[in-house]
């Protein structure tokens, strides 16, 4: 009996000691160093979409590039205030530092000499040539960022179309063929405008002067990013999904401050900081753990964030996922209210009129006074401020009153500067009476949109606004399949449709070229079918000039679009982040999350 009692006491003591050590372990984050930093520098957050690809030559989604910007570097990058600053290059080329020739056609780029890839390889000018030639040959969605470089078209032509016989098990693929050619320095895949006079200099020659190129080449996680040839060649199809293992070839190798150390598709991603990274600031975080969740899990994630399981929510291109009730919940909790960070997001949503597809467009097609008048009637009948208040509660969006380019970006026209943002139901009604007195033209109109997010309440709001202010019943045409909706819109199969754009880089060219310009028309992206020779000619001229000279011409384009009533401005998106107060350096600008190497976890 005595023996049993002693044994029980021993077990009890062990349990108490175990409990204490568990408590100590659980409170690991609260242990601080003398500098105020938490001992454990592991950042944890959820994302709500799997990576499509982390290959800079092909990436086309913000959810991917937000992560890639911490692994790959460009020659230049945007700082937290969206200023262009040197990254792999020693400076930003300009005519004053002799980086840009007087005719604006040649850029001389000097590279930093201490740069290393995170597999230990040294970085040189050859890596820039390889990465950019490869990106041009891959012909991804952002290959056009390099299109001004001499020889770009020839490389795309030489690369040809990918074979359709590929599979995952050994058939020589398009990418494999490209890699073989690039490895052998096949001249057909070398842009003639790209050369490397020495290991630390790159010379870029353009076919035409280009005022927007420098910003486009600096777009994070995209065609201007530098990849490691050796790593890509180990598995041209899937190198980006492989982890980097010290001492082994291959994996998602970049020159950034973090590398991918674990990846379970559709489940989780882990990144570790590169020890002795060449850049600045040196990463304080040692690890970043990302959980890939279904969007429906966000309510549970907010609870987990409040309980400390996650440090932030909204990073990785997910700043629009917090719903209004969740935002209100955080705001209403005195402990967390100041940890909700609201930030304008560089995305504008508008309504596109079908102005260029007569067979499918309805009464808004064309440039007749009646078509324009009706477009304007529908635009003036919508109270944009009330829409932002009703639909977004002035939390998830703000009224788009300063033109198509979002507030805070180059090209923003100024508050209330867009005449189409006005709300004038009297004039709207009068225009409708003038151009459609019988109501025949505006009978059976449809507004098409993809469901989800704010799109449904916005559609209902518009329907009510037109019914109330114009007396016109517009039918809603929702599509639960976004890809089908976008396909229809791109091919002009709509009358009025939800439309929008999230800027890539801070330059008006990103908007005016990609949406209504000759490039958009040529690539099938001009959804409204708007086609105006004056617009194209002003655009071409503006694109070739430095932004300081081109801005007035871009503003002229804005005027052409609003005069023609191609769109109805609706709202600017607002990003919402839940960021625990012990995170220093975390946040976002209108374009992207702040870089991970700027973040540190304070003791808490």
């Amino acid at each position, binding site marked *: 009996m005595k023996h049993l009692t002693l044994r029980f006491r021993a077990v009890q003591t062990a349990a108490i000691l175990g409990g204490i050590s568990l408590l100590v372990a659980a409170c690991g984050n609260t242990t601080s160093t003398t500098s105020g930093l938490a001992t454990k520098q592991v950042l944890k957050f959820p994302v709500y979409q799997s990576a499509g690809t982390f290959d800079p030559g092909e990436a086309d*989604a913000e959810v991917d590039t937000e992560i890639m910007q911490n692994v790959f570097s460009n020659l230049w990058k945007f700082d937290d205030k969206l200023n262009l600053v040197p990254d792999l290059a020693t400076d930003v080329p300009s005519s004053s530092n002799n980086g840009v020739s007087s005719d604006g056609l040649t850029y001389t780029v000097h590279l930093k000499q201490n740069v290393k890839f995170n597999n230990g390889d040294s970085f040189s000018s050859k890596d820039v040539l390889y990465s950019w030639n490869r990106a041009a040959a891959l012909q991804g969605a952002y290959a056009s960022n390099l299109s001004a470089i001499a020889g770009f078209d020839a490389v795309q032509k030489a690369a040809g179309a990918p074979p359709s016989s590929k599979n995952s*098990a050994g058939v020589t693929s398009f990418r494999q063929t490209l890699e073989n050619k690039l490895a052998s320095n096949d001249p057909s895949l070398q842009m003639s405008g790209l050369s490397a006079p020495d290991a630390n200099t790159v010379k870029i020659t353009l076919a035409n002067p280009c005022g927007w190129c420098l910003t486009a080449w600096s777009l994070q996680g995209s065609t201007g990013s530098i990849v490691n040839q050796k790593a890509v060649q180990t598995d041209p199809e899937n190198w980006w999904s492989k982890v980097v293992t010290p001492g082994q070839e291959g994996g998602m190798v970049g020159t950034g401050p973090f590398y991918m150390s674990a990846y379970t*598709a559709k489940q989780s991603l882990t990144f570790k900081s590169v020890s002795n990274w060449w850049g600045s600031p040196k990463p304080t975080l040692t690890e970043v753990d990302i*959980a890939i969740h279904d969007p429906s*899990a966000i309510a549970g994630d907010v609870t987990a964030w409040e309980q400390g399981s996650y440090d932030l929510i909204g990073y990785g291109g997910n700043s629009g996922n917090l719903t209004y009730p969740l935002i209100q919940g955080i705001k209403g909790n005195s402990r967390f209210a100041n940890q909700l960070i609201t930030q304008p997001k560089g995305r504008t949503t508008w309504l596109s009129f079908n102005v260029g597809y007569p067979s499918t467009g309805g009464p808004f097609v064309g440039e007749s006074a009646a078509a324009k008048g009706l477009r304007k009637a529908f635009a003036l009948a919508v109270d944009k401020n009330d829409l932002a208040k009703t639909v977004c509660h002035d939390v998830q969006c703000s009224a788009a009153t300063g033109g198509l380019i979002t507030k805070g970006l180059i090209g923003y026209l100024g508050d209330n500067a867009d005449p189409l943002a006005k709300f004038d139901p009297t004039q709207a009604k009068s225009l409708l009476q003038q151009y459609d007195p019988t109501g025949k033209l505006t009978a059976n109109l449809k507004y098409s949109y993809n469901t989800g997010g704010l799109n449904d309440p916005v559609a209902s709001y518009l329907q009510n606004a037109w019914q109330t202010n114009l007396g016109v019943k517009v039918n809603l045409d929702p599509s639960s399949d*976004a*890809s089908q909706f976008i396909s229809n819109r791109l091919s002009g199969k709509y009358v009025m449709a939800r439309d929008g754009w999230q800027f890539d880089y801070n330059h008006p060219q990103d908007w005016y070229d990609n949406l209504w310009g000759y490039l958009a028309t040529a690539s099938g992206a001009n959804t409204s079918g708007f086609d105006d020779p004056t617009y194209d000619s002003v655009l071409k001229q503006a694109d070739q000039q430095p932004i300081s000279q081109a801005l007035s011409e871009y503003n002229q384009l804005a005027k052409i679009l609003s005069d023609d009533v191609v769109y109805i401005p609706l709202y600017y998106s607002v990003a919402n982040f839940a960021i625990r107060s012990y995170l220093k350096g975390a946040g976002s600008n209108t374009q992207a999350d702040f870089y991970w190497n700027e973040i540190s976890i304070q003791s808490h």
Partner: protein
Amino acid sequence: MLTRGTLIYIGQRLVLILFTVLMVSFGVFYVVHLLPGNAFVSDRVHGRALQLLLHQYGLDLPIPVQYWNWLKGIFLHGSLGVSLYIRGLPITPLVLRELSVSAMLGGAALIITIGLGVTFGVLAAVRQNSWVDYLLTSIAVVGYSVPSFVIASLGILIFGQWLNNVTNGGIYYPEPWTGTYGTLAELSLPALALGFYTSGQITRITRAAMLDVIQQDYIRTARAKGLVNRVVILRHALRNALVPVTSILGPTVIGIITGSVVIENIFGIPGLGKEFVESIFQHDYNVTVGVFTIYAVLIGFANLGVDLVYTVVDPRIRY
């Protein structure tokens, strides 16, 4: 011991499974490729970039040619192809991992189904016309009358909302699945929701079979020999009563496999069922077809397994 007849039977069934899988996979392959939209198109990907991607993944080929290429990948390389949504990612490891998650859930649900069903059925029969019988029979009626998604939703409401403070998340916590196989707490409610429906059917059948068996002469003889009731029920009555139960094991397993599509989506469990639905919305054709094909194989083998179990439970059955 497998007899020659049994081996021939297994061979015939394997051929039948292969034929069924081919038919099912082609049907699904054809239908999903007819759906409007595709995995690539977006505000950024259109025009030439879109055409190149479609061409690269062979999606501009005639559907029979695409199917033939897909079949070649399976038979020559053991590959279900690559994902279109996560571009180029081989999907075989992905779906195998998800299969293991679904198997975990399905296995737990099967234990609940058989465990609850047989226990309730035996107790109800042994205590026939008592309050125990009425209670258990009523639970069984509720079980097979209420669809699993209703049980799941009620479970979330009760344990995730109303009793969350009481259980402290011990039964259900509205957090995403935390690991490859989840935790017992995460698994308990989904498995119950998935298994409860069929456990009601098993309760009914077990009860009826037990009532039939315990009135047989050999049971009376066993009791006359002085055996205690527990031994009589468990050793002599239950085994014979399980023969009709075995006959519905096939449909039960199939019900659990197909039911997991709904349950995994309700609870956010990263198994095959959730993947199946997601892949349809994402136009990730290879994943959809791969998952459906795996389902067809599983159902084929589940039926075969049940047929073989018959011979063990009832030695009179020969193939």
